[in-house]
C-alpha cells in the first residue's frame, strides 16, 4: 500500500512535467495542425538554461537563498526559452506556412536535429549532474511504513498547478485566447475578421516554450542530471500525453500527462524498468489506433 502511494506520488510528479510539455504540443497542433517536432528539444535546451542559470546564481553571483535563486531561474528561463521557441517558429515554420504538408514536418525534424547537436557542441556530450537542491523530504506515516514527498516534488506540484491556472485564465479570458481559438477553427476567416494570425501563432509558440521551460527546470531538479539527448524521449512521451488527452484540448494535455507519468512509474515499479519506454510508446500506438480523438478531443468525422 505505502509502496503504491509512493509510486502514485512519483508518477504524478513525472506526469506534471509531461503535462507541461504536452501543452506546447497540443496548442501548436491545434493552431497550425503540425507536430512541432522540435518542442522536445526546446524542453531540453530549457533544462540546460536552468542548469547554467542556477550555477551562475548560486556559485558566482552569491545568491544564497535557494528559493530566490529558483524564482529567478524560473522567470529568466521562461523568457529565454520562449525566445528560442519564437525564433524557431520564425525560421523553420513560418516560411513554410501553407505549403506542401511534409515540408514543415521535415523542417521541424531538421530543427530538432540542429538543437540537439547545438547543445552537444556548445555544452559537450557528457551528462551534467546538477547541484542537488531541495533535498529535504517530508515523511508521512502510513500503515506500517511511510511515504515520502521531497520538497522538489511538492514544488513541482504547486508550480504546475499555479501555472496551469494562470495559463487557463489566459486562454479562457483574454483576447489572445479568443484569437487562438478563432485561428484553430478557421485561420482564413480569422484573418478576414482582423485577427493578426501570424502574431497569434507566434504567441502560441512563446507560451508553449515558456511552459516547456518550467518543465525543463523541474526535470533538471527532479532527476539531478541533464544531457543533450534528453529531449527526444520526454518529447515523444509528452506528445503521447497530448494525444491521449485529445489533441487540441488543454485540460486533456494535463490529464494525459499525468496518466502517462503514472503508467510509466507503475510499469517500472511493478513490471520491468527495461521496458518502460516500450510501454509508453505502445500506449501511444494503442490510443491513436483505437481512440484517435483521445479522452477529451472532438471526434473527427470523415466528410465525403
Amino acid at each position: 500500500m505505502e509502496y503504491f502511494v509512493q509510486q502514485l506520488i512519483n508518477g504524478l510528479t513525472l506526469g506534471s512535467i509531461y503535462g507541461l510539455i504536452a501543452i506546447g504540443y497540443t496548442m501548436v497542433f491545434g493552431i497550425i495542425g503540425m507536430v512541432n517536432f522540435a518542442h522536445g528539444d526546446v524542453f531540453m535546451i530549457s533544462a540546460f538554461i536552468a542548469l547554467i542559470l542556477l550555477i551562475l546564481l548560486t556559485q558566482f553571483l552569491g545568491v544564497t537563498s535557494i528559493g530566490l535563486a529558483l524564482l529567478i531561474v524560473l522567470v529568466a528561463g521562461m523568457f529565454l526559452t520562449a525566445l528560442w521557441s519564437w525564433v524557431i517558429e520564425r525560421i523553420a515554420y513560418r516560411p513554410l506556412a501553407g505549403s506542401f504538408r511534409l515540408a514543415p514536418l521535415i523542417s521541424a525534424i531538421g530543427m530538432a536535429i540542429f538543437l540537439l547537436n547545438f547543445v552537444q557542441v556548445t555544452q559537450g556530450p557528457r551528462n551534467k549532474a546538477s547541484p542537488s537542491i531541495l533535498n529535504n523530504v517530508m515523511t508521512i506515516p502510513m500503515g506500517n511504513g511511510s511515504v515520502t514527498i521531497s520538497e522538489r516534488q511538492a514544488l513541482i506540484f504547486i508550480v504546475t498547478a499555479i501555472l496551469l491556472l494562470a495559463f487557463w485564465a489566459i486562454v479562457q479570458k483574454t483576447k489572445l485566447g479568443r484569437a487562438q481559438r478563432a485561428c484553430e477553427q478557421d485561420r482564413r476567416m480569422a484573418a478576414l475578421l482582423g485577427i493578426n494570425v501570424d502574431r497569434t501563432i507566434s504567441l502560441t509558440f512563446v507560451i508553449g516554450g515558456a511552459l516547456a521551460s518550467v518543465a525543463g527546470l523541474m526535470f533538471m531538479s527532479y532527476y539531478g542530471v541533464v544531457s543533450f539527448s534528453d529531449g527526444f524521449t520526454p518529447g515523444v512521451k509528452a506528445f503521447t500525453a497530448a494525444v491521449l488527452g485529445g489533441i487540441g484540448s488543454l485540460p486533456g494535455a494535463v490529464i494525459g500527462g499525468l496518466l502517462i507519468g503514472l503508467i510509466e512509474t507503475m510499469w517500472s515499479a511493478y513490471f520491468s524498468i527495461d521496458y518502460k519506454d516500450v510501454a509508453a510508446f505502445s500506449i501511444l500506438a494503442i490510443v491513436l489506433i483505437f481512440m484517435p480523438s483521445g479522452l477529451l478531443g472532438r471526434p473527427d468525422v470523415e466528410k465525403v
Partner: protein
Amino acid sequence: MDTTDGGTPVSDGALPSPRFPIEDALRSAGLWALVTLGLCFPIVAFETLQDFSNRLTIEARPLLVLFAVAAVFAGRLGWLAVRYHGLPQLLPATRFELTPERKKQLPRIGLAALLIFPFFALLLTGQGGAVKWIDNFGVQILIYVMLAWGLNIVVGLAGLLDLGYVAFYAVGAYAYALIATYVIPATVPGLGPWAFWICLPIAGILAAFWGILLGFPVLRLRGDYLAIVTLAFGEIIRLVLINWVEVTNGNAGIRTPYITFFGLPFSSRTGETTFGDVFALPGSPAVHRSMFLYYTILALALLVAVATQRLRRLPIGRAWEAMREDEIACRSLGINTVNTKLTAFAIGAMFGGLAGAFFGARQGFVNPRSFEFMESATILAIVVLGGMGSLVGVAIAAVAVIGGIELLRELSFLKQIFGPEFDPGQYRMLIFGLAMVLMMIWRPRGLVGARQPTIALDGNAKAISASHVKEGHG
C-alpha cells in the same frame, strides 16, 4: 524580424528607391544581433564543466558570443544588401534547365557513371585511397539510395507518412545476423558460405511480414498521427532489440560473418584460398571486397528501381498514386484501399529488409545503435528532398545528403584555422539539421516535383507539374 526588412529590390520596378536604405538594414541587422545575443545567453556564453571535486561549474565564453553576434549582424546586413542589389554578376544568369531529350538520357548517364565509379576511384586514388571512396562513399550512398527508393513507395507513391522505416532495415539486419551467425552453423553448417544469399530473401520476406503487421493497426490513421505511430513502432522495435538481451545480445550487438564471393572469402587468416587467389587479381583483398559490396548493393538498388518502375505501370501502382491523390475517390471506384495500403507497406518494408541484410553482411556487426530515429528521419528527408515519387530526384538527394554528411567528416583542414582541439565531426549533424530546414524553405516540393505519367495516349506524355500533384493525407 522581417518588419524592418531593407526596402524593395531595384528590379521590382514599382517603387524604385534611390539608394540602399541603410538605416532600415542596420536596424534589422541590429535586431537580429540582439536576438542572437538572447539565444546565446546562457547556452553559448557559459560552458558547464566538472571541476576537480567533480562538482559542476561554469566557464564564461564571451568571445564566442561576441563572434556569433557579430557574424549574425554581418550576415544579415550582407543578405539584405545582396537582396537589394541582386547578384547578377556572381550567379549564372541562365537557369540550369535540361532539354527533354537530355532528361530522358539522365538515368542512363547516371547508371553508366555508377558502373564505372569504382574503377575510376581506383584509378584516381590508388589501392590505399580507393576503399574509402568505394565503401564509405559509394556503398554508403547506395544503401541510402536503396532505402530511400523503398520508402518512396510508401511515402512518395502511396502518400503514407512513415517515420519508422528504419524498423524494417533493423528487421533485415537482425534476420541476417541471427540466421547467419546462429541458425545456419547450428543446422546446416555446410551452407555457411552462402549465408548472405540465403538470408537475403528471408530478410525481405520477414520485413514484408512486419510491414503488414505494423501496417494493419495504422490503416485508419492519417497525416501526422500516422507519422507518430510509425515512429513509435520504430522505437519499440529498437528498444526491444536493446532489451531482449538473450536473443539480440542487447547493446553489445552481434558479430556476423563477413560477406563472401559466393563462398570464396575475400581475405583469410587461416590460409584458405581467397577471391583474389582464384581469379589471380592484383590489388588488396579490401579493395576486392569493397568492389564486390559496391556492385552487390548497386544491383539491389537497381532491383528496387526496376520494380518501382514496373509497379507504377501496374494497377497496384496506379492505385497507390490514386490513393495519394484522393482516397475517397479510390473507394468509390471499387479499390480496396486497405489492401492497397498494406501492399505499399509490405513492399516498401521488403526493400528495407533487403537493404538491412546487406548492411549486416557489410558491417560484419549489428547493434541497435544503427537503427535510431535519426536514420528514419534521414531517409524520409531524402525522399522529400528528392521530390516525392521521382526515382532520379531521390537518388540525387541521397547523393547530396549522404555524400554531404560523409564529406563533412573530411573537414579536418578546419583544424588549421580553429586549432587542434577543434573537432569538425561534431558539427556534422548540426550542419545537417540546419541544411534540412534550409532545403525545405528553398524547395518545399523537393528537387524534382514533376510527376511522370504512367501511360499515354500518344507516345510519351509530358511530365505533370508539381502544383497538381497531391501529397496524400495518410
